[in-house]
């Protein structure tokens, strides 16, 4: 059943401050909507629950990519096309560019935003594994001020995040200190474009004297939200890449992953493939 669109309110203030004031003042909660690639699907299907929306689309305070000497700061309103087109992201943050390239289709990449992909909090979202591997920070804003926290602490439970009702995700910051890191990302699904992943892994690692000095692994669809595989990481630090190390890492993934059976795949398949993907990366180190 199609929704009755006249039941929905949508306002489009022309500044971030005006949006934040509305979120702070309004007794009825307004739901932010950016490129609409998630919420408008629910509208079309007649299952869009909230009735009041505030548009963030094209707010210039949220749609920017700033390159500092030590970090890149991506406004939450940047589209996947903005991300793919950015020369520094293409050059230094290739697994984020890669994830952006398989987030929906070209038309969806022209509308979907990085911030939307994060706050929608799907366990299967395409960009979070790369952001987790890069140890990105997220900055949240409200009329009360701004706060920054590691992205890995942003998701609290299925579809629950750190965001307070009056807060917006403002930007994502990634350190440019990635010298000597090898990177990996792979999405397993029916096809790259327009298909939600069964499981995805992004990872970066640096070797020192033949040993794994540092490794960070981000995963989609292995938990109720996008998550780092921290126990698996711990099992690998300081090790050489041997058959034993790989076997132990595979066991760590299987122990740490808590995937579900659903329409797209089974828990067993997801966990096994995640272990395969990690092994594929480890063999390149």
């Amino acid at each position, binding site marked *: 059943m199609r929704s009755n669109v006249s039941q929905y309110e949508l306002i*489009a203030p022309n500044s971030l401050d005006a949006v934040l004031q509305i979120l702070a003042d309004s007794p009825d909660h307004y739901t932010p909507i950016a490129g609409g690639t998630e919420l408008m699907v629910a509208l079309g299907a007649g299952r869009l629950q909230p009735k009041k929306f505030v548009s963030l689309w094209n707010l210039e305070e949220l749609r920017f990519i700033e390159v500092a000497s030590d970090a890149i700061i991506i406004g939450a309103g940047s589209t996947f096309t903005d991300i793919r087109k950015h020369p520094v992201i293409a050059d230094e943050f290739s697994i984020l560019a890669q994830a952006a390239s398989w987030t929906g289709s070209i*038309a969806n990449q022209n509308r979907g935003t990085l911030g939307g992909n994060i706050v929608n909090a799907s366990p299967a979202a395409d960009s979070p594994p790369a952001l987790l591997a890069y140890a990105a920070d997220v900055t949240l804003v409200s009329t009360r001020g701004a706060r920054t926290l590691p992205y890995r602490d942003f998701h609290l439970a299925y579809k629950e995040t750190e965001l307070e009702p009056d807060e917006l995700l403002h930007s994502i910051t990634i350190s440019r200190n990635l010298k000597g890191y090898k990177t990996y990302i792979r999405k397993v699904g029916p096809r790259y474009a327009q298909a939600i992943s069964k499981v995805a892994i992004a990872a970066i690692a640096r070797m020192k004297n033949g040993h794994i000095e540092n490794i960070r692994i981000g995963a989609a669809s292995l938990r109720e939200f996008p998550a780092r595989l921290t126990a698996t990481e711990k099992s690998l630090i300081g090790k050489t890449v041997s058959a034993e190390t790989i076997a132990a890492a595979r066991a760590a993934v299987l122990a740490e992953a808590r995937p579900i059976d659903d329409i797209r795949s089974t828990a067993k398949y997801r966990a096994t493939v995640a272990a395969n993907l990690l092994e594929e990366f480890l063999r390149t180190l």
Partner: protein
Amino acid sequence: MTITCVINNKEKNIEAPPMKRLLDVLREDLHLTGAKEGCGEGECGACAVLINGDLVNSCLVPVLQAEGAEITTIEGLAIDERLHPIQQCFLEEGGAQCGICTPGMVLATHHLLDKYAQPTLLQIQEGLNGNLCRCTGYMRIFNAVKQASLVGAAE
């Protein structure tokens, strides 16, 4: 609510609820029925239009977000009742059968050729990866896009 935008080079004032899908505004209010509803969830590309030159699925755009935008639908592509060169190539190469996906395919091709005047097969496949066709098996569509690039349809 009144929303003002430019559609196919003509300024339009549209009276519509702000969350109404651009697709429905085009089809119901403006009687521009070239954009089709396939899936209604941004998967098939049959409703694709260009907003400020960017390919978008009009089923996922609340019309308020089109305020001030320049929109091109398939009706705005043909020049003086003559087919656009991309349309001509789709015709000659058999890139259209039932026609439901064709407006979106043609606009996706336009967007692709704006970015890459001479796209590789891989770039063609990626450029059209959000446009589904149940008739052609895609090869004839890829040929049409290739042909369009050869005749310089990007201009």
